[in-house]
């Protein structure tokens, strides 16, 4: 496995760490492939899986450089569209794979979780962050459509609140994310996060593996989590909008 995602297992608790700290763990094709490998490598007897990020950020979202391609490419070029669709489809499929794990999943949101990075936290069964972290979906501010995360956010916080959150864009603090239902727990500072995550993981690990897996399977059926076609269609919608001149211009401006 590439070291872009590190998998560690201790006593029934597996940790997947996005490991590209110099790029704030931005989601590149290579990182997402490594995430798939990491998810495939989670032992069948793991009871809890923790997803976290190396360095100060959890995940800054899509790797914009990779999505936009080389300077000078025309907006909507075939190359860019293909790359964006590849990346977003990998993300959509990783989300379904993450959700389908029989182990209970916790997003340990150690720092900024933006766009697709924030989307990954909504796929996890639980998310814990700290008061100063930044979370949210600023896609519409950049002319981009957060379609790929929308189904997961609807499942997490309900359709009404998800609609408002995605259409308003912007970011929120960890405390605000907790109030909005995006995370299940918010500790005061980054220093307290690891202990809170460990405490939850150990409590969850006391559950019977068969009981947890059966309950998760039923929950996934009820809320439509295993709808891979919807996930792929969502990726296509996001990729199509990413190829439009409005989005390309705004993303280029953001990258400077």
């Amino acid at each position, binding site marked *: 496995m590439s070291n872009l995602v590190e998998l560690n297992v201790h006593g029934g608790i597996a940790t997947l760490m996005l490991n590209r700290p110099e790029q704030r763990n931005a989601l590149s094709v290579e990182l997402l492939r490594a995430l798939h490998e990491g998810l495939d490598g989670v032992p069948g007897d793991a009871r809890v899986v923790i997803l976290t990020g190396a360095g100060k950020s959890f995940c800054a979202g899509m790797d914009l450089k990779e999505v936009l391609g080389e300077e000078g490419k025309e907006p909507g070029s075939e190359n860019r569209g293909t790359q964006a669709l590849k990346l977003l489809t990998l993300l959509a499929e990783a989300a379904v794979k993450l959700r389908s794990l029989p182990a209970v999943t916790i997003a340990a949101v150690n720092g900024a979780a933006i766009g697709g990075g924030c989307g990954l936290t909504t796929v996890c069964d*639980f998310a814990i962050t700290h008061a100063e972290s930044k979370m949210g979906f600023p896609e519409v501010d950049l002319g981009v459509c957060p379609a790929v995360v929308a189904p997961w956010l609807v*499942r997490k916080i309900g359709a009404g609140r998800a609609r408002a959150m995605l259409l308003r864009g912007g970011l929120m603090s960890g405390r605000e994310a907790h109030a909005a239902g995006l995370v299940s727990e918010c500790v005061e500072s980054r220093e307290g996060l690891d202990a809170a995550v460990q405490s939850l993981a150990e409590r969850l690990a006391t559950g019977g593996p068969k009981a*947890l897996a059966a*309950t*998760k*399977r*039923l*929950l996934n059926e*009820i*809320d439509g989590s295993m709808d891979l076609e919807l996930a792929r269609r969502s990726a296509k919608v996001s990729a199509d909008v990413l190829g439009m001149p409005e989005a390309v211009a705004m993303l280029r401006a953001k990258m400077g």
Partner: protein
Amino acid sequence: MIHVSTKECAGGVVGRITLDRAEKKNALTPLMIAGIVAAVRELVGEERKDTGGTPMPRIGSIVLEGNGAAFCAGFDLTLCRENSDALDQLLAGLSGTIRVLRRCEVPVVLAAHGAAIAGGCALLGGADVVVTHHEAKIGYPVVRLGISPAVSAPFLRQSVGDGKTRERMLDSGLISGWEAFRMGLAHECLEDAGKVRDRAMVIAEQLAAKPRWGMAATKRWMNRVDGSDHDEWAERALAASMGLVGSGEERERLAAMWKAG
């Protein structure tokens, strides 16, 4: 173990169903579960298949409550020691009871004045209005025993949505009444546990005084909108829980619990 009574009030009549097994924290037996269903039917009548011609029930609302310190500690799992069919009976009975409460023609107000655990917590999903207090203990600690709480998932999600349902079902930790109120599982949260049952009765009296046809039609429509009147998911959820009954994991963990006393 189940008391049924009625109370005349200014606007109508309130039916009262009381779990009365305080020495066992109102832990549910198959007989008690059947008693709740029988009580609803005695008070309201059989579930109606249409809206025409049937007289309205004489009561206008129901209060579901428990005697003693707890509302309900869940299933009486000691029954499963001697009777291998007991857990199946309890799960099937619970699923049926939640559906009967949810679909009866009058609103149900539940007073969770004390602990509402596992099957006791699941009963909250059958109620239309839940009153609790700040320090009540609420939740589903049963995955720890190798039992899946899936049976009540379709009803919990109607109250709190899919995200919170996932958290509550998978986390064997308990939450406070205040947290239950914040997530929408309870609708009023009092500081004084001793006032919860009285408050539930006040709400039930207010509901009983409202026009019956409109109330029944509204409840029926809410059931249609949120899927409470469909059996498919309730049956699948019941099957998910029953699928684990008798598993090695469940037998080992229950045995360990009994051994520990």
